[in-house]
């Protein structure tokens, strides 16, 4: 069977599964809708968190990105896993004990202020929309490549599927579809990795093949370093970013991860404090399977690519090369007109441009794997994009129906009324996300890092101080969040979008890139919050009691009690 038939069959089956789950898990209360009734088992929550977390970018782009960055790719590998240690140790158990529905719930109650709540809602919405636009685009791109439809059509199909299970089932529907999506995406990621690792190094396990030897007996990484030097690239195992920048980017991504509302809210769905801790462990274990395989794939793909195309006759390139040339993801420009492909570090002489996404998407073809594996990768990419999109849409819809309408505009709204608003909220969110998916604003790539920077600069310090510093009051927390967020926005706009006089690398403060600046903004937030809080009165008795209460596990009820 050809690739397209396989893709229709496999993607069709997975979509049928998602819709089936949606019908089976229709939400009947706001508690179902926001936190899946608060009774998800820790392992299922771990799977759902992993799928929620691993986006189209993790699945499709990350391995390719790392293959161009070499050692520097560690910022993503450590940055997007290390945050779970912070989540498990510093946030999840306490927020679960607090036991409400959303992150702005915690900020608003802990800082006894609707101003704080509103600031948190704004942060949550900005962070989530930034993210979700990329996911819808990812759905469109995967459809376009594998089903040969227009990107817009792909986005529409994705919107309909997400709309169906997110609106009907809320968090309950999303949780159980995410469990299914995790299984699909990890299977789809690992199968080609096993094949390629075995082909290249004789070892089936990619994590071991990564450090293994190739057919001529040299170590794979030494071989790749050698190839890189020959072609004039920097050695693969050594980076080109400065140490301070690597440090700050890693920190910003870790702390940003721990501050992302769609991740935090997953820990409200389990029954106990104990479950929240262990499900963070399961989530990271399940994420680590992909994250320790990705850098191995980067090396396999990079080595394969260089060996296949470097200095080859253009007329005799394999079929996949021509296939992907059509999509524009790989381009050849014969600058010296010798009919051969020169892929070299010197920009002026280099004749080949390669999009990072091709590394995972074309990997099975480069390695000559069977057609069903290629179709599986398509289904995996869709699962990764849809699961993350759904999690984000829920945060947006809960922000509207719960944090704005129920908590501020219309506190006497009935349970039913709030549920209706939650559904309306999710429809609005899907439509806006779809719009951005079809008309991606040019700055999407630039603002994805902003999502992490913002989460790091705003939520993370406010939540940590809310738990560990009883004396922290609303004045300190609000000022910290606002100043942290504005500083981050200013730096991003200046160096990414050219506002406020713009500037390039030479103008970076302390040599820190905008991607890493979230670390600095976070420290500023901590400093402002801490010093300002001491100038104003301590929080009221009942708030101090909340803080006392969340520190001890006993008595964690369901997340339904208000």
């Amino acid at each position: 069977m050809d690739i397209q038939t396989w893709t229709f069959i496999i993607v069709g089956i997975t979509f049928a599964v998602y819709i089936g789950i949606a019908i089976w898990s229709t939400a009947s209360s706001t508690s179902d809708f926001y936190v899946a009734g608060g009774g998800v088992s820790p392992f299922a929550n771990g799977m759902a968190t992993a799928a929620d977390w691993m986006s189209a970018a993790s699945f499709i782009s990350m391995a390719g990105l790392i293959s161009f960055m070499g050692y520097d790719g560690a910022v993503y590998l450590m940055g997007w896993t290390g945050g779970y240690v912070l989540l498990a140790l510093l946030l999840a158990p306490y927020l679960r004990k607090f036991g409400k529905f959303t992150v702005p719930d915690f900020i608003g109650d802990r800082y006894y202020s609707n101003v704080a709540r509103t600031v948190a809602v704004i942060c949550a919405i900005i962070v989530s929309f930034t993210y979700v636009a990329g996911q819808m685009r990812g759905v469109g791109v995967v459809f376009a490549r594998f089903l040969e439809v227009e990107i817009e059509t792909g986005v529409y199909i994705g919107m309909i599927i997400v709309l169906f299970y997110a609106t009907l089932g809320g968090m309950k529907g999303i949780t159980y579809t995410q469990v299914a999506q995790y299984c699909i995406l990890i299977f789809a990621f690992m199968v080609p990795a096993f094949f390629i690792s075995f082909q290249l190094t004789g070892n089936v396990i990619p994590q071991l093949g990564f450090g293994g030897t190739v057919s001529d007996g040299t170590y794979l990484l030494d071989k790749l370093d050698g190839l890189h030097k020959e072609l004039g690239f920097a050695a693969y195992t050594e980076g080109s970013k400065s140490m301070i920048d690597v440090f700050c980017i890693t920190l910003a991504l870790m702390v940003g991860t721990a501050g992302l509302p769609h991740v935090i809210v997953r820990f409200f769905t389990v029954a106990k404090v104990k479950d929240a801790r262990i499900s963070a462990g399961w989530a990271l274990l399940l994420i680590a399977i992909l994250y320790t395989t990705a850098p191995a794939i980067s090396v396999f793909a990079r080595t394969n690519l260089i060996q296949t195309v470097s200095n080859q006759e253009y007329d005799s390139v394999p079929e996949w090369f021509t296939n992907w040339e059509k999509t524009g993801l790989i381009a050849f420009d014969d600058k010296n007109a010798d009919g051969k492909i020169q892929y070299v570090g010197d920009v002026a002489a280099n004749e080949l441009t390669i999009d990072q996404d091709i590394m995972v998407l074309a990997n099975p073809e480069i390695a000559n794997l069977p057609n069903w594996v290629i179709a599986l990768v398509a289904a995996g990419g869709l699962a990764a994009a849809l699961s993350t999109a759904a999690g984000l849409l829920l945060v947006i819809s809960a922000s509207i129906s719960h944090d704005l309408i129920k908590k501020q505009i219309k506190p006497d709204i009935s349970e039913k009324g709030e549920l209706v608003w939650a559904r309306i909220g999710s429809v609005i969110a899907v439509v806006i996300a779809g719009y951005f998916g079809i008309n991606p604003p040019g700055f999407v790539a630039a603002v994805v890092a902003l999502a992490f920077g913002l989460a790091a600069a705003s939520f993370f310090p406010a939540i940590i101080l809310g738990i560990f510093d009883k004396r922290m009051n609303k004045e300190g927390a609000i000022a910290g969040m606002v100043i942290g967020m504005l500083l981050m926005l200013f730096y991003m706009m200046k160096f990414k979008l050219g506002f406020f006089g713009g500037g390039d690398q030479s103008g970076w403060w302390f040599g820190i890139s905008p991607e890493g600046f979230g670390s600095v903004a976070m420290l500023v937030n901590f400093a402002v919050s801490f010093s300002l809080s001491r100038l104003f009165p301590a929080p009221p008795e009942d708030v101090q009691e909340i803080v006392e209460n969340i520190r001890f596990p006993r008595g964690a009820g369901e997340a339904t009690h208000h």
Partner: protein
Amino acid sequence: MNKQMYWRANIRYLLILLSIWFAVSYGAGILFVDQLNNLRIGGFKLGFWFAQQGSIYVFVILIFVYVRLMNKLDKKHDLDEK
């Protein structure tokens, strides 16, 4: 008193575990990567291995150790959930 002791023990665990978290990622993977790269395990330079593999394994282990420690601590101070 009991609650104070529980909280202090909790903070102590956090400090120990987060020091390890910092040491493997920011220490071995970033600050001392060049020095560690002079050592090798199999085909990996050690610093590179910590940055792209080792630190992630340690992160996973840290969370499971934390869960064990805290479950025991909850019981010891009779603060676990019923």
